[in-house]
């Protein structure tokens, strides 16, 4: 039989295993502002390079929604040194992969290659970030691909529920707009818009680059310096984000998509930023509500006990600014009212009753004990290194993390749930076949 393990034994276990720490992570700030990180892992002959620069959807004008994402998609379509074909021939012929995509605040990139091929590919990455030419013909090709995707989105219940949720939760705020854009706005984006966006916002200032894998740390830092060290662009300060407020009433929006057989829903409110002191208690509360095991209490109640959903989970998007704290589920249309009631019941329980000691310990133990699995691959480590910089967690974060989680109490979990979650004041966004009305609250 398995031994019972409280958080103390988990703590010892995670301590005994050497997580990346100030002693093993190399970090250097280059003169142009780039934060270069490197971590050695020689268990396989591959290297992952992950990072971000500060250009995102918050920088685009509302009538050009999708511009940051369109720009990111265009980078590999041609540079002053290489054509689209040359770029992808170089990447694919060595079995490497390069992904670049925009978010709200940043544009992220990830490169994966055999260590032997890294120098050539790093040169390409630097070239596409710094010198894209946005060839007219390629602009139209990429526009066609984006428009096809947006057209598919209109008939995708999951994506439409998520989109309308954001729009309703963050009215007049960049977080309320789609990073991918809309058909009308993407139609209106010109080559000049793309060139201007790149020229204005792509810059090495505070750019984060993390290199993990079969390369010596000092060589990794040096490679980053060679690729980006002479880049001197600057970008203007981002506009301050407008204030957000949590919904003051129950708001239900429905997107009818005829012919569908399942309804997807997103329901929630505004949560908190990653740097908020409440963050860890909120992460633990979220774990209890809709993550732990097969999706926490929501999984036990709504999926398992009542058989009302195929999937249901909760999600805390804590980024640079407060993002959504939401529950996401797929249900048969006829079960929608009961599923929504079940979700609200579980949220209410989290507010009204303290989490029992055993359940609290199990959840803490999961958050601490799953660290080795998250740090198994180069991608996993690189992702956490980028987060450590982005949210200024400190290079000793992974060493401190077990204690941070272990010290949380049931009272803190209840307090944070009460502060942010109110099952009577939330946005519910549904997308599916019928304009089904959930029970309980009036529909707006």
């Amino acid at each position, binding site marked *: 039989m398995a031994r019972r393990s409280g958080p103390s034994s988990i703590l010892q276990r995670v301590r005994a295993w050497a997580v990346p720490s100030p002693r093993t992570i190399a970090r250097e700030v280059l003169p142009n502002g780039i934060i270069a990180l490197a971590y050695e892992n020689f*268990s*396989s002959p591959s290297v992952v390079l992950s990072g971000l620069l500060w250009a995102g959807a918050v920088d685009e004008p509302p009538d050009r929604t999708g511009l940051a994402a369109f720009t990111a998609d265009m980078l590999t379509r041609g540079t002053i040194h290489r054509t689209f074909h040359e770029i992808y021939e170089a990447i694919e012929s060595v*079995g490497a992969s390069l992904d670049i995509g925009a978010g709200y605040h940043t544009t992220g990139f990830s490169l994966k290659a055999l260590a032997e091929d890294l120098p050539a590919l790093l040169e390409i990455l630097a070239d596409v970030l710094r010198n894209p030419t946005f060839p007219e013909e390629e602009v139209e*090709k990429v526009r066609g691909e984006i428009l096809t995707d947006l057209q598919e989105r209109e008939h995708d219940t999951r994506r439409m529920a998520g989109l309308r949720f954001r729009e309703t939760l963050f009215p007049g705020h960049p977080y309320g707009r789609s990073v991918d854009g809309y058909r009308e706005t993407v139609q209106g984006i010109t080559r000049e818009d793309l060139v201007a966006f790149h020229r204005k916002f792509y810059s090495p200032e505070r750019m984060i680059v993390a290199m993990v894998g079969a390369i010596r740390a000092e060589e990794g830092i040096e490679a980053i310096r060679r690729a980006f060290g002479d880049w001197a662009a600057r970008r203007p300060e981002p506009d301050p984000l407008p204030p957000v407020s949590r919904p003051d009433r129950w708001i239900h929006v429905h997107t009818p*998509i005829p012919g569908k057989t*399942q309804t997807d829903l997103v329901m929630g409110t505004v949560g908190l930023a990653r740097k908020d002191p409440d963050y860890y208690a909120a992460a633990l509360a979220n774990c209890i509500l809709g993550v732990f*095991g097969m999706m926490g209490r929501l999984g036990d109640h709504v999926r398992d006990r009542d*058989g009302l959903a*195929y999937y249901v989970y909760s999600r805390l998007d804590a980024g640079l600014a407060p993002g959504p704290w939401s529950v996401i589920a797929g249900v048969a249309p006829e079960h929608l009212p009961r599923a929504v009631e079940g979700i609200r019941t579980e949220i209410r329980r989290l507010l009204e009753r303290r989490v029992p000691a055993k359940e609290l310990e199990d959840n803490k133990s999961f958050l601490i004990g*799953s660290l080795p699995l998250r740090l198994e691959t180069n991608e996993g480590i690189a992702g956490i290194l980028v987060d450590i910089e982005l949210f200024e967690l400190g290079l000793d974060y992974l060493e401190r993390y077990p204690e941070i989680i272990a010290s949380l109490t049931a009272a803190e979990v209840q307090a944070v749930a009460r502060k942010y979650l109110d099952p009577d004041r939330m946005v519910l966004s549904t997308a599916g076949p019928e304009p089904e009305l959930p029970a309980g609250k009036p529909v707006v």
Partner: protein
Amino acid sequence: MMARRSVPRISRRFRPVRRDGFLKTALDNGLTVVLKEQHHAPVITFWVWYRVGSRDEPTGLTGISHWVEHMLFKGTPTYPKGTLDRLISREGGTWNGFTWLDFTAYFETLPSDRWTIAPEIEADRMTKALFHPKEVEAERTVILSERHGAENNPLFLLSEQVQALAFQAHPYGHDVIGWPGDLQTMTREDLYRHYRTYYAPNNAVAVAVGDFRIPEALRAIERAFGRIRPALEIPRLRAVEPPQRGERRVVVGGEGNTAYLEIAYHAPEATHPDFMPLVILNAVLAGSGSLSFSGGTSNKTSRLYRALVEPRIAAEVGSSLIPTVEPFLYSLTVTLQPGRRPEEAEAIIDAEIQRLQSELIRPEEFEKALKQARADFAYSSESVTNQGFWYGWSEIFADYTWFETYLERLARVTPEDVQRVARTYLTRASRTVGWYLPRA
């Protein structure tokens, strides 16, 4: 900890542990055991693979293997429903189950000092799952809802039709989820019989990869599984698909505003000598992504991307070549750009296939396919879960040497082989073509 004396005596042929930390052996009850040491991180993955999947499902019972898989998460007398979830999660582990054409598989990945709960859990639910009638009914709703979710996706509706049309006799013709009518009518007794028939040590492969020493791992697996009795006989359906005598076509009308095209050719089983040439063919034609050990690279230099996506006929092109026990399908899928019709893409694909049949692929295309496979292999070794997946799956459709010698066998393919398989398999008469056209 259990007492050491409870371990059954081992009376196996002597099998040396390979120097790189690998052992394949079998317990007396027929359970195949594959063990691979990998010490880069303190994690271990443990898998049990059953040789049962949708290919073992007769008419009227389609979807039964997948449903049985769900029921193995609904409790045993030792581990009532919900307890395992807590047990594994609080150790920081992860677990799941999969059902496919040829297999049903279960895994746990855990920190290495806690992993021995995994063989205990899997041995327990190999024979003791409850199949409580109330749970069976609750799961019927969940599975129908899973099917409804899939039906929301036009590509599912299209591929289900194409697959059904491509097979007239063989059970590979139905999707793993099963037909809705069967999911409505299947009984608890059907499910329990299927479970008791196919869940036996002599119909299973246990795989562990990670931070352990082989003798200890073998002891843990013997302790857990050694006492389970083998099944006397594992029945198999014996359907053989007759040769296809002409092209088959289906037009699926549905909601949405995007059109899709799928073309499926009959392809040989994984152990057939023609399978590896098809792997190269697919990498050149549509990109190596579909048979990737780690996620692979993009396909923007493949012939079909250049011919379909660059001239803005398609937004996306993909392919699927899957190793199977019996002959399955090689399929190409195209997402059309707004205003484009499937026949435009079809004509271009026909021309590209004709080119494969009439001209040899270029040496640089061949080299690219090999290098992609080599890189992909290196990436795949970073995750023990991924390694466990490939050791186990290859044991199902061939054996682990299929996986370990993959790169060598790929390197032995010649451009002439690729041309030959293009002529043999990619013929009009043996293909099934499906169009998805939005009704609007």
